[in-house]
C-alpha cells in the first residue's frame, strides 16, 4: 500500500516538475501583446455626417495574429444600429491600420465599441460619438406653468425670514483667507449651511466677485480655499447634505426620491431654493460684488447651477459640468440612476405611478431650466457619461439662448478635464472684468 502511494506521489511530483520545466518554453513561445489605438477623425468625436475612425493594431508577438476587428454602434439606450468588421492578418511583430466609416445616422449621440479578436488577444475599446449635435432638440415639452410654479416657489421662499448668521472660524483660516460658517433659513424653515471664504485684504475699497459652489449628490462641501485675491467662495450644502442635515438626513439612495410624487414637496424644490437663499445672503454682504456671481457645480451641482441661474437672474455666470436630470423623459429610458431608486420608491407607494413621477420631474428637468437662462453659461460633458449622457446634456445646451459654450470630453465619463476648469476661469475673469 505504502509502495503504491509512494509511486503515485513520485509520478505526480515528476509530472509537476515536468510541467514547471516545460512552462518557460511555452511562455516564451506566446510572449507578447497586441496594442491598439483608436483615433476618431474629429478631436471631440463630433461629426457633421459620417463618423470615421482609424483603428491601429500593432503586435509584439513573434507568431502571426489572425482574426477580425469589428465595430458595433448602438443608441445610448443600447439598441444596435450598425456594425462592420475587417479581417486582421498580422505577421510576427506586424502592424496594420483599419479605417471605418459610420454613415447614415441621424443627429444624435451614439455608443461605439471596437472589438479585436485575434489569435492570442481579445479586447474591446468603448467610445461614443456625436452626429450633428447642434440639431438635437427634446421631444418633450416644458410644462406650460413651469415659470409660474417657480415664481410661486420663490414667493414662498421670500416669506421665510432668512435669519442669516455668520460665524468666523479662525481655526479654519488658511491661504490668506478668512473662513465663515454661514447659516440661513430656507424654504420650509429648514436651516441650511455653507462656508464663505474671503481673501484677506487691507484695501478698504476691495469687493470680491463670488463663486457660489454647489454640491454634487450627497457631497459634503467644505470651505474652499485658493490663493485668488479677487474671488470669495461660498460653498453651500443644500438641505440633506453635508452640514445641512438637521431635518433631512437620509440614506444616499433615498435622497433623490424624497417627495418625488409631489412637485410641491420634492426635495429638489427646496434644494434649488436653498441656492436662491444663498444668493440672498450674498446680497446682504457689502464686501461682495452683487453683479459678479458665478454659480458653479458638477453633476447635481451642475443641475443646481443651471436651475438656480435660471430662476434667479441675479447670477451673472453659470458653469455646469455634467448636469444631471436633463431631458428627464429621455433619460429615464437610458440610464439606471436615479430611476432604479425612483422606481423602487414608486413601488412602495400605493397610488404613485412612474408616469406621475415623470410629470412631476418635468418641473425639475434641467433642460427646462436651461431655456430660461439669461447669463453666460458654460457646459461640460463627457461622451462616455452614463449618468448625464451626452444626448441629454446636448439637448440642455441647445436650449440655452444666452451666450454659451460647450466643452466636450471625448474619452471621459461623468467628469470633466482640466481644460474645462481653465476655460471657466478665463471666461469668468473676462466676464467679471477681473483683468
Amino acid at each position, binding site marked *: 500500500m505504502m509502495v503504491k502511494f509512494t509511486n503515485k506521489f513520485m509520478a505526480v511530483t515528476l509530472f509537476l516538475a515536468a510541467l514547471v520545466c516545460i512552462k518557460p518554453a511555452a511562455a516564451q513561445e506566446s510572449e507578447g501583446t497586441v496594442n491598439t489605438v483608436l483615433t476618431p477623425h474629429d478631436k471631440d468625436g463630433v461629426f457633421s455626417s459620417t463618423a470615421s475612425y482609424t483603428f491601429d493594431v500593432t503586435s509584439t508577438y513573434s507568431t502571426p495574429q489572425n482574426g477580425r476587428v469589428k465595430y458595433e454602434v448602438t443608441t445610448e439606450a443600447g439598441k444596435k444600429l450598425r456594425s462592420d468588421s475587417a479581417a486582421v492578418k498580422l505577421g510576427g511583430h506586424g502592424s496594420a491600420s483599419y479605417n471605418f466609416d459610420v454613415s447614415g445616422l441621424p443627429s444624435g449621440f451614439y455608443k461605439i465599441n471596437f472589438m479585436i479578436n485575434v489569435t492570442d488577444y481579445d479586447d474591446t475599446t468603448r467610445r461614443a460619438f456625436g452626429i450633428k449635435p447642434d440639431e438635437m432638440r427634446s421631444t418633450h415639452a416644458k410644462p406650460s406653468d413651469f415659470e409660474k410654479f417657480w415664481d410661486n416657489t420663490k414667493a414662498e421662499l421670500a416669506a421665510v425670514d432668512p435669519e442669516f448668521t455668520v460665524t468666523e472660524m479662525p481655526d479654519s483660516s488658511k491661504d490668506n483667507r478668512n473662513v465663515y460658517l454661514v447659516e440661513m433659513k430656507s424654504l420650509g424653515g429648514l436651516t441650511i449651511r455653507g462656508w464663505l471664504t474671503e481673501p484677506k485684504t487691507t484695501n478698504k*475699497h476691495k469687493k470680491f466677485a463670488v463663486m457660489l459652489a454647489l454640491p454634487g449628490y450627497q457631497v459634503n462641501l467644505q470651505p474652499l480655499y485658493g490663493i*485668488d485675491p479677487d474671488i470669495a467662495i461660498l460653498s453651500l450644502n443644500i438641505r440633506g447634505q453635508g452640514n445641512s442635515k438637521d431635518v433631512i438626513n437620509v440614506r444616499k439612495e433615498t435622497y433623490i426620491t424624497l417627495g418625488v410624487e409631489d412637485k410641491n414637496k420634492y426635495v429638489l424644490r427646496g434644494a434649488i431654493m436653498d441656492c436662491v437663499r444663498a444668493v440672498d445672503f450674498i446680497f446682504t454682504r457689502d464686501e461682495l460684488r452683487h453683479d459678479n456671481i458665478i454659480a458653479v457645480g458638477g453633476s447635481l451641482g451642475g443641475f443646481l447651477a443651471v436651475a438656480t441661474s435660471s430662476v434667479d437672474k441675479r447670477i451673472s455666470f453659470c458653469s455646469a459640468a455634467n448636469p444631471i436630470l436633463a431631458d428627464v423623459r429621455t433619460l429615464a429610458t437610458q440610464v439606471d440612476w436615479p430611476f432604479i431608486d425612483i422606481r423602487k420608491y414608486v413601488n412602495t407607494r400605493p397610488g404613485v405611478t412612474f408616469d406621475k413621477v415623470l410629470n412631476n420631474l418635468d418641473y425639475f428637468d434641467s433642460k427646462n431650466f436651461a431655456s430660461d437662462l439669461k447669463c453666460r453659461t458654460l457646459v461640460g460633458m463627457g461622451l462616455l457619461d452614463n449618468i448625464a449622457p451626452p444626448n441629454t446634456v446636448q439637448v440642455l445646451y441647445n436650449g440655452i439662448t444666452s451666450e454659451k459654450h460647450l466643452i466636450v470630453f471625448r474619452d471621459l465619463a461623468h467628469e470633466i478635464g482640466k481644460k474645462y476648469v481653465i476655460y471657466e*476661469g*478665463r471666461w469668468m*475673469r473676462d466676464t467679471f472684468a477681473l*483683468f
Partner: protein
Amino acid sequence: MSLLKTSTRILFFTLILFVAAHSVSYADGGFPVRPGRLLIAPSVGYFFANSQWDTDGKKQAFADNGKFSSVGVTLYAEYGISRKFAAVASVPMVFNRYTTASSPTVTSSGLADLETGLRYYLANIDFIYYFSIQGTAITPLYSKNPSLGYGEEGAELKLAFSGTGHLGGLATYFNAADGVRQYFGTNGPIQNRYNATFGLSLDSDYENQISATLSGIYSQSNDKSFSVIPETNKDFSFLQASIGFGHSFSHETSLFLSGGRFVTGRNTGVGTSVSLAFIYRLDYR
C-alpha cells in the same frame, strides 16, 4: 482651487519702458484694464549717445567729441473706466545735457509732451489673446523751447495685441503694438511707432519676470535736419533692443528695471538707455 490668475499677474508687468530719448514712455499692450483699477508708475530713465547714424544709416561719432545725455522723469497713470474703456496719461519731465570738447555745455530742461489717451478693449481669442485700440492726444507742455520736442500737438492711433502662454512650465506673455502718430505743425512728422515684447515669469508666484523688447520709430517729414536730441528730429528711424527685469513686492507694488540700445537707425543718435519704474496699483472697486 485655481481660478487662473495668470494673465492678471502678468499684467502687472506689461508696462514696457520705452526709452526713446529723454523721456520714458509706456507702450502698454492689448490686455484690458480692470475697471476701478488705478495704476501709477513714476519712473526715471537715463539716455546717452555720443554717435549717430546719418541719413544714409552710416554710423559716425558726434562732431567735436560731443556727448548727449538726458535724464527723464515720467509719471504714468492708467485707470479702468469700465470693462471696455481705460484712460491713460503720462507726463514727462526732462533734463538734457550736451557737451563737446571745445564748446560750452548746453543744457535744457522742462516738462515735455503730455500724452492722454483712451484705450478700448476690442476682442479676445479664447480669453488668451487680447486686442485693444488706443487713441492718444499729444500736448506739448512747453513753448518756444525746441530742445524739448516738436512743440506741436499730435494724435496717435495704436493697435495692440497681447497674450499669455507657457514655456517649459513657466508662464509667458507677449505684447505687440503698432501706432501711427501724426504731429500737426509745420513739417509735423508722421510716425510709425511699434514694439514687441516677450516676457517670462521666473517663478510660479510671478514675483520675478524677465522680458525682451524690440521697439522703434519710423518718422517721416520734409524737415531732414539732425539734432543730437532724438526727440527733436523729424525725419529719422531707429530700432531698439531692450531687456527688462521686474520684481513684484506685493500685489500692489513692483519695480521694473530695463536697459536697451539702439541697434540700427537713420538720422538719429546711437542711444543707450536704462530706466527704473516703480509700479503701484490700487483697486477702487
